[in-house]
């Protein structure tokens, strides 16, 4: 009997990767990075420090959320550990007027756009399926759990952006759309249709692929025989691969591509090579399917440690780092406290938003439930 191909090797690795910081935090741009270097020129120190703060605060939050899950306070947790640079660089590159479609792991981006991360925990605690109003919170759309679905929503939204206004040429005003998805999502029909649509209508959007090398227990080699960045060219979409653990690379390339997209030059695709250091979710046990050597290799490429070295080299003070640590601890403690204070929503939540306009069934069943529950009171 024959066997199906099952590749050990990773055909999906680095190709012309944009990287500014080597793993020791030295500024050592790869040849591919040169084109994007102007994006880093003149960046304020305060913004460079903000990148660090974003990563550390999110990492600390992530750890706290993991604890909360273990302590029975969350039904599930979806860690972002290891992917902070990919998320922070791209999230900070997005301009205020941009609209962002996340999948479900982009906690760093959520925070950057102004989402109260407590609302993310409310989702994982079973208090809501949504959590915030995207129109009021940084144009950051709701998390989407069906793999790949949000890519099409992003593309439709970007079609709407293009229909609303022709680009004015002012990058501080023109809108772009940024959509996040994973390596597993690249195999989904929806994602591929979104790429077809985006290319066909030349939408102002950036597809941001976080290749964290795993889709739960399935390695990226099962999804693709070629580096995923190469997929884009088949759709006619210019693409760049970045070292997703280098926040500067993620920032520079995202800023560039978002501005290209918003200026009417069509969609762009970014593959950020990164790694899911933690489990897929708290329900997962990665020791069953991946080697400790691989984990160790990627731990040595930790995005925060690397960037910290860079900032130290640039003269950032101990005081700065200590301040960030404290802020991160305070943020996590505050969220823990507020999570423990959160209350179960009224059962009305099940019925009140099924439709926008009147539909007889939800109010009928809401009344029936109320009557049923009241009947127990009468019996006593």
């Amino acid at each position, binding site marked *: 009997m024959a066997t199906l191909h099952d590749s050990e090797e990773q055909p999906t690795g680095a190709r012309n990767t944009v990287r500014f910081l080597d793993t020791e935090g030295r500024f050592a741009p790869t040849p591919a990075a040169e084109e994007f270097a102007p994006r880093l020129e003149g960046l304020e120190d305060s913004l460079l420090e903000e990148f660090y703060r974003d990563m550390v605060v999110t990492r600390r939050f992530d750890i706290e959320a993991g604890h909360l899950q273990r302590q029975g306070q969350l039904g599930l947790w979806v860690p972002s550990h290891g992917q902070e640079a990919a998320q922070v660089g791209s999230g900070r590159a997005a301009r205020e007027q941009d609209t962002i479609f996340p999948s479900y792991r982009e906690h760093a981006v959520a925070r950057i756009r102004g989402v109260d991360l407590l609302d993310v925990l409310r989702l994982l605690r079973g208090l809501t399926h949504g959590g915030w109003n995207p129109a009021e919170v940084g144009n950051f759309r709701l998390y989407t759990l069906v793999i790949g679905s949000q890519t*099409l*929503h992003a593309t439709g939204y970007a*079609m709407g952006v293009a229909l609303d206004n022709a680009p004015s040429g002012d990058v501080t005003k023109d809108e772009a759309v940024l959509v996040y998805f994973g390596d597993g999502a690249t195999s989904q029909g929806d994602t591929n249709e979104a790429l077809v649509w985006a290319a066909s209508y030349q939408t102002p959007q950036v597809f941001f692929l976080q290749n964290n090398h795993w889709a739960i227990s399935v390695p990226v080699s099962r999804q693709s025989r070629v580096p995923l960045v190469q997929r884009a060219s088949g759709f006619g979409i210019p693409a760049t691969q970045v070292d997703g653990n280098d926040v500067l690379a993620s920032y520079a390339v995202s800023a560039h591509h978002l501005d290209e997209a918003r200026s009417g030059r069509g969609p762009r695709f970014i593959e950020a090579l990164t790694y899911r250091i933690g489990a897929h979710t708290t329900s997962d046990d990665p020791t069953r399917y991946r080697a400790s050597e691989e984990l160790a290799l990627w731990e040595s490429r930790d995005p925060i440690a690397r960037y910290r070295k860079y900032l130290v080299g640039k003269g950032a003070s101990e005081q700065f780092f200590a301040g960030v640590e404290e802020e991160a601890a305070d943020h996590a403690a505050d969220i823990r406290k507020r999570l423990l204070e959160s209350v179960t929503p009224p059962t009305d939540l099940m019925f*009140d*938003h099924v439709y926008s*306009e009147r539909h007889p069934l939800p109010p009928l069943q809401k009344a029936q439930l109320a009557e049923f529950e009241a009947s127990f009171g009468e019996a006593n």
Partner: protein
Amino acid sequence: MPGTVMTMSKAINQGLADAMAADDRVLMMGEDVGPLGGVFRVTEGLHARFGGDRVLDTPLGEAGIVGAAIGLAMRGYRPICEIQFDGFVYPAFDQITSQLAKLTNRHEGSARFPVVVRIPFGGHIGAVEHHQESPEAYFAHTAGLRVVSPSTPNDAYWMMRQSIESDDPIVFFEPKGRYWPKGDVDLGAPAADLHASRVVRTGTDATVVAYGPMVSVALAAAEVAATEGTSIEVVDLRSLSPIDYAPVVASAEKTGHVVVASEAPGFVSVMSEVAATVSERAFYSLEAPVLRVASFDAPFPPAKLESIYLPDADRILDAVDRSLAY
């Protein structure tokens, strides 16, 4: 206002055109809906009148059509999607049932999703596999969607206008076998609420409940029955989610004999739901169990067998006779 005589195809076309003229956020999108005017010509002339930015010939992918429509709705547009044939809606099933249907609920009131998904459905055109199906139960089963199906040109015009105006997602089933017969359309005012069911023929001995393509069959059955001295009342549901039960229950209370008829196979169908509800709400008036007439629980057959597969007036009359014999 005097009625204008037109086909259902033209009535829907007119409804789309009038809605697009009234609100420039209304978009039409789908496969071949542009210069061709759709394979059934329902979008004929729209592309020429409103242009390619309002009438979008999309790439060929149903998930893409509906998924992109959802994004457009998030942006404030009111997209109308055309699914070319009933049997090709399934690639979009996830976007319709997991996204479109649930997004209102997920947003807890902070966003609305006014998307209409038009689906020509049902048999009577002698087509190949996948072109004559009746998938409405899948959508009626899904909370968050509204599902409607007109049976006349007048209803088609107004229900299309009302669906486009609704802020909820609506799956609009067009009985393609009824696209071409003509009927009066009163462009002055809607005949009824979008979700109202309606008695379309009064009678006293038995009630036949139908919708979409089966309404004309039920009316034909009633015509035959009348010549034999049996008076059949016909109720057109018009809306499959929600269902307006008041006229159905009132009719059941009057006649005591209820037959429900659909082109969709009967197992776990919309009409199963109607049968159950009529039993609950009109139990003491019923003199016979509610009987179902439906297509067989087999895939839609090759065209040469479709007239046997689809319920006709005789199958309805047989059920009425069985009910009256109880």
